[in-house]
């Protein structure tokens, strides 16, 4: 894999796999017959404006994560993207999911990422902190995937319907987790526990090696 040819062939194989996978997924998505959308296009209300603003914040944040040279800016971009996605959940009447997104991804995961970034060696030298590589392969992947994604976006019949009213869901979700979906819930917690133990094991080993 050290040579350029080897790298290129690896990229081609990866691209091919992704395209095949996405193509298959596309057929799965589009299989329900394409019906011209009967979207009720009313005048753009305050809600619509809010939606587009939040969507723009999400996309701008995601772009910042990918394009920024400074890794701290990338972290702030991720913060914006996650916040925007969380607020979009509110538009789907899923306030519990929105709050959970805030609590876990922004308050937990991203803070830990930020913490790790701040402890990184040579963090003050911005240029080495967030370099980009593999631009040719990335462009190839992007170009080959784009038609599939565009096809999905244009061909899928997106049903436009008003979301359900904001109803209390917390108790329902809690009951669901502890009754009907108990097994998946417990399995997920087991996976998280295994991750925790694994992290501790890795950290302890490093200390012993010193």
């Amino acid at each position, binding site marked *: 894999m050290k040579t350029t040819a080897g790298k290129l062939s690896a990229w081609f194989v990866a691209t091919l796999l992704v395209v095949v996978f996405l193509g298959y997924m596309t057929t799965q998505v589009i299989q329900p017959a394409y019906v011209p959308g009967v979207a009720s296009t009313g005048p753009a209300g305050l809600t619509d404006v809010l939606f587009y603003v939040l969507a723009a914040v999400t996309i701008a944040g995601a772009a910042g994560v990918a394009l920024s040279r400074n890794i*701290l800016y990338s972290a702030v971009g991720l913060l914006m993207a996650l916040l925007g996605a969380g607020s979009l959940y509110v538009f789907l009447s899923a*306030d519990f999911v929105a*709050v959970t997104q805030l609590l876990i991804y922004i*308050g*937990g995961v991203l*803070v830990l990422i*930020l*913490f790790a970034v*701040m402890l990184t060696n040579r963090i003050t030298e911005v240029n080495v902190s967030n370099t980009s590589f593999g631009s040719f392969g990335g462009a190839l992947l992007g170009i080959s995937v784009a038609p599939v994604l565009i096809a999905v976006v244009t061909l899928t019949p997106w049903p436009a319907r008003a979301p359900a009213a904001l109803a209390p869901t*917390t108790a329902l979700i809690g009951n669901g987790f502890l009754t009907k979906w108990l097994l998946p819930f417990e399995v997920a917690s087991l996976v998280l526990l295994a991750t925790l133990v694994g992290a501790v094991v890795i950290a302890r080993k490093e200390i012993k090696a010193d």
Partner: protein
Amino acid sequence: MSRLFGMIFVLGGLVVALVGLGWAFYLLAGFLAVTFANAGLPAQYGAVIGNLLTLLLVVVMVPGSLLSVAERKWSALIQNRIGANRIRIAGSSLGGIPFLVADAVKMLTKERFQPDQATRFLFNLAPILAFAPVFALFAIVPVGPAVPLSAINGAEGALGRVAIALQVASPDAGLLYLFAIASLAVYGTSLAGWASNNKLALLGGVRAASQMISYEVSLGLALVGTMIAYRTLRLEEMVVAQGQGVLGAIPALGILLQPVGFLIFFASAFAETKRAPFDLPEGESEIVGYFLEYSGMQFGLLFLSEFVEIVILSGVIVAVFFGGWHPILFEETLRAQLSPLAFAAIGAGAFLGKMVVLMWVQMLIRWVLPRFRYDQIQKLCWKILLPAALLNIFITAAAVLVDPSLRLLAGIGLVELVAMGAITAAVSRAPKAAHGHADAHGTDHGTAHAAAGH
């Protein structure tokens, strides 16, 4: 004797003023609700706007800024000094309150200084990120009970049945919203430390991040017990549940049902405010803190967010553990004798009064206790508070499962309270044996802080 009468007079005046404040809040919210209804908008919008103005601007901001004066005067009281008194208006220092104006003028007119090679965008963003989430926390705190609009200003028909409560928002996720927003506060401090391009500030930021993410865990777990006991996540429902009697006439207060949960929550939330004894991120005597490079109002925002956190923490603790707006004493008589609006105003006044007491307690802790060493802070969180919180959840769940009427839980809580009192008494009687030890630990900190000032 005259001093005693003076104190009674001042305290009585304070209580009357707080009740009057609650009354005024209800009148404003009711007036705006009717105005909005007349303009064809939902009446609740008007009530929410009124509550935003009264609760967030008056109840949070005014004590938040007054606490900066109170910190000087109360610390002086504790250390047997007089405190700030050099600004005199008509020969009186007015309890140091003019210093508030002086501080504001100083901070607003000071040069806004940017350190060389600081990350400009993040440097300017950090104070906003530190202040805004703290401010948003108070939105879910229920200061007063719901009162029908007809009882406030005699609105008729369907409009009269609209319930007006002194609470800005009531999301179904309730306490989860609290945890989620509280976890945002860490961004302000850690980014401020990083963006300053200063090693000491970076140290402060890293310390703040590690301390706050550690204590967030026990903060969340401490309240699970109350969630189990009251079977709700909404703060206003918790407050209502605390009004019912559980052991005879004793109401089911959170402090009675969950004394251990209260201690853990108070300690963790105190650590989240980053004040002494948990002031490692600031560490005036060693690293100055994450706000080292800030000046002017940007420093003011970082500084003010600390005080606002105190106010919010008092509000949340009152709502969850001290019965919220229930006046507790003579409650049934008051409810029967007075009009709904007067009762609600007394409730709001009771809430605000309890908040004032808790703010005083927090100031007391900050100026009396010596600070922890860094490893002690982490040890306290992970080895004491976290296991205690988990045990508390287990015991609470078992007690509620055995006896859903909460009587068993209240009995356990009573035993825990007595045990805590006994342990405190036993420990505090021992200073003679451990005299040298106590001396080595922490004398000078209080005076060091006082000398450094802010």
